[in-house]
């Protein structure tokens, strides 16, 4: 008998269906609903190579009982008949005989005693749960492992193992690999992401607590209860899960702060946080009555600045020379800028810290989720001289409707703060005799960002392309830009 909602007694069960990417921004109430209903009814989960299924338990005289025919039915052909107070069941060429109200049972030629009496109710033979491993191993002829406390029973070599390790990228990710496809329900609460495996034969790891060398995702734990297993990832930031490898891999990525979980939004009239995932609807409602001051929002901020090395992966950007791609130059400058900002006490998130693909929408979503005070996009060009600093050119349309903010015009309320930051950086650059221009530009994701945002287009000072890769020039530009950001800090902390 396949796993079905009928088998689950029709209780509510969270299912996320086919989408491979789940942004687990589920409110706590849905999680409580999910797990509180599970705990209301005692259940037994059975895992085998034939089927995985769950059954409700019944309590009689202080003992948990299970209907034996329901246990055997999914595992193969089974027949049963009642003769007076005797109940006989035949499955897989084995025959068992039970007597109502008695402990003695015969399976094949061997007899043994159950821990409590066999019950016959309306033709249904019921056996004590604790006796099930012994009964099944004799009827099926297979080894049976029973996790009695969590009521999870494994027949034969059924089982799914998993390994977990943190991959250290610009945004740390916990990669969990399973030996078979999985489809857990996922829920989050502040600092935790829960993966609930109700119909996977997930086996416990060597240690129930896994620790990682990561500040963002320091640990994960495994526990079993009421016929299900659960992996809980603990993080210092909101997290979301991504499925890959035909659902054999779950990657838990930490976002510094997700939009849905913060109650802090920009002041009235300012754009709300934009969509938290790529491809998501661009408009997001802001709960009424949750307007808070910018200072409160910054108080919850983990990173003051987000630095974005443009392009990357398959997208090389401009060809600055025969062998020099814009994506490599931007990454070098972005790393330098991060270092210079952090050396001045500015917490900085580098969106791309390797040669990876990152779409414009992903950059916008990750930035908006981080709630920084300033976003710096880094570009490079061969035509100079010096540096051009861009703020967003807001497109036509993009009207906000009540609490919904247009994705394309999310920057509208922050243009003033962005221009002030651009001016501050420009002053510092001029002080260093670096040629600089400030302009508006139709450049994404600037207009999608819900914070002050500027983009730098760094050109060689004298038209010599090799200067773009010069450590001296990179450090000069980075330190000067960082100084400009520091000078604009008070303005940025004031909000839009």
């Amino acid at each position, binding site marked *: 008998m396949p796993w079905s909602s009928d088998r689950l007694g029709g209780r509510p069960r969270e299912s996320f269906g086919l989408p491979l990417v789940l942004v687990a921004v589920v409110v706590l109430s849905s999680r409580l609903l999910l797990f509180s209903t599970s705990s209301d009814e005692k259940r037994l989960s059975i895992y085998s190579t034939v089927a995985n299924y769950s059954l409700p338990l019944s309590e009689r005289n202080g003992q948990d009982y299970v209907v034996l025919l329901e246990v055997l039915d999914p595992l193969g052909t089974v027949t049963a008949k009642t003769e007076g107070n005797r109940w006989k069941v035949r499955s897989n060429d084995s025959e068992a005989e039970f007597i109502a109200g008695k402990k003695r049972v015969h399976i094949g030629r061997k007899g043994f005693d159950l821990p409590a009496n066999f019950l016959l109710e309306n033709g249904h033979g019921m056996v004590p749960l604790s006796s099930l491993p012994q009964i099944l191993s004799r009827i099926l002829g297979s080894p049976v492992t029973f996790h009695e406390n969590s009521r999870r029973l494994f027949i034969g070599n059924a089982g799914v193992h998993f390994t977990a390790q943190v991959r250290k990228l610009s945004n740390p990710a916990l990669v969990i690999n399973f030996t078979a496809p999985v489809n857990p329900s996922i829920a989050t609460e502040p600092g935790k992401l829960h993966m609930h495996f109700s119909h996977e034969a997930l086996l416990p790891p060597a240690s129930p607590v896994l620790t990682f060398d990561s500040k963002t995702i320091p640990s994960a734990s495994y526990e079993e209860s009421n016929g299900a297993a659960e992996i809980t990832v603990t993080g210092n930031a909101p997290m979301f899960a991504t499925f890959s490898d035909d659902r054999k891999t779950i990657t838990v990525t930490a976002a510094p702060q997700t939009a849905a979980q913060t109650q802090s939004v920009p002041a009235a009239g300012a754009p709300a946080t934009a969509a938290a995932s790529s491809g998501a609807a661009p408009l997001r409602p802001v709960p009424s009555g949750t307007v808070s001051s910018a200072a409160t929002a910054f108080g919850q901020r983990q990173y003051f600045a987000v630095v974005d090395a443009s*392009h990357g992966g398959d*997208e090389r*950007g*401009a*060809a600055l020379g025969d062998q020099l791609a*814009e994506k490599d130059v931007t990454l070098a400058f972005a790393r330098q800028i991060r270092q210079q900002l952090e050396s001045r006490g500015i917490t900085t998130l580098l969106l791309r810290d390797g040669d990876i693909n990152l779409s*414009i929408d992903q950059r916008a979503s990750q930035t908006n989720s981080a709630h920084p005070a300033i976003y710096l996009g880094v*570009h490079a*060009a*061969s*035509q100079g001289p010096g540096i*051009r600093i*861009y703020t967003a*050119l*807001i*497109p*036509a*349309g993009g009207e906000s409707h009540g609490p919904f903010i247009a994705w*394309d015009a999310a920057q509208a309320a922050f243009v003033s703060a962005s221009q002030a930051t651009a001016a501050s950086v420009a002053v510092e650059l001029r002080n260093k005799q670096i040629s600089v*221009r400030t*302009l*508006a*530009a*139709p*450049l*994404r994701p600037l*207009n999608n960002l819900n914070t002050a945002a500027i*983009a730098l*287009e760094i050109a060689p000072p004298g038209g010599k392309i090799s200067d773009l890769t010069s450590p001296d020039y990179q450090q000069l530009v980075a330190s000067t830009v960082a100084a400009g950001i520091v000078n604009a800090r008070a303005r940025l902390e004031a909000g839009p």
Partner: protein
Amino acid sequence: MISRHLLFGALVMLAISLGMGFYVWHMRGVSGTEFGEANPQSVAPPVSGPTEQVVLYVAYDDAGVLRPQASRIPLPEGRQQRAEELLRALLGLYLDKSSPHPLGTGSEVRNVYLVDPGLAVIDINSAFANSHRSGILVEELTVASLVQTLSANIPGITRVKILVDGKERDTLAGHADLTRFYDVAAVNQLAAQLQTAQ
């Protein structure tokens, strides 16, 4: 002996045949003329006739600026055709060997559609976008040049959308956003910024 009636009938038939032949020959000529007029490929930009003064916003890469440039070009009567001719004149400058803002060979403005109220859709060809140099400023100069030239000479345009081969494209060459509708008022301000190198 041929009767007089038979001879008269034969002459009438001959006259009718000649008349029909002439008519068919005449109609074939008319049909060919109409087909030629309906074929859009045969339409060539006017190379002569009355000219009008217009202002083209021309990008200069050396200084990274956009400068208004008065020019006299022949323009047709139709509003949409005028818009197309304006941009083709602008591209003529960019495709010239002494271009201040070179575009790739084969770059064309396929069509300009004017949709009331206030929307202009510029459809450039893929050669234009595919061969365009990549960079924020260089792409921005192209976009601002097209939008500003159009809006400065065709009254009533408030928004501009740029398509490539009739389809939406993310960016011109990796930077300038083509998914949006350009607000002419905002581009006016940008054009003012772009007129100075500092």
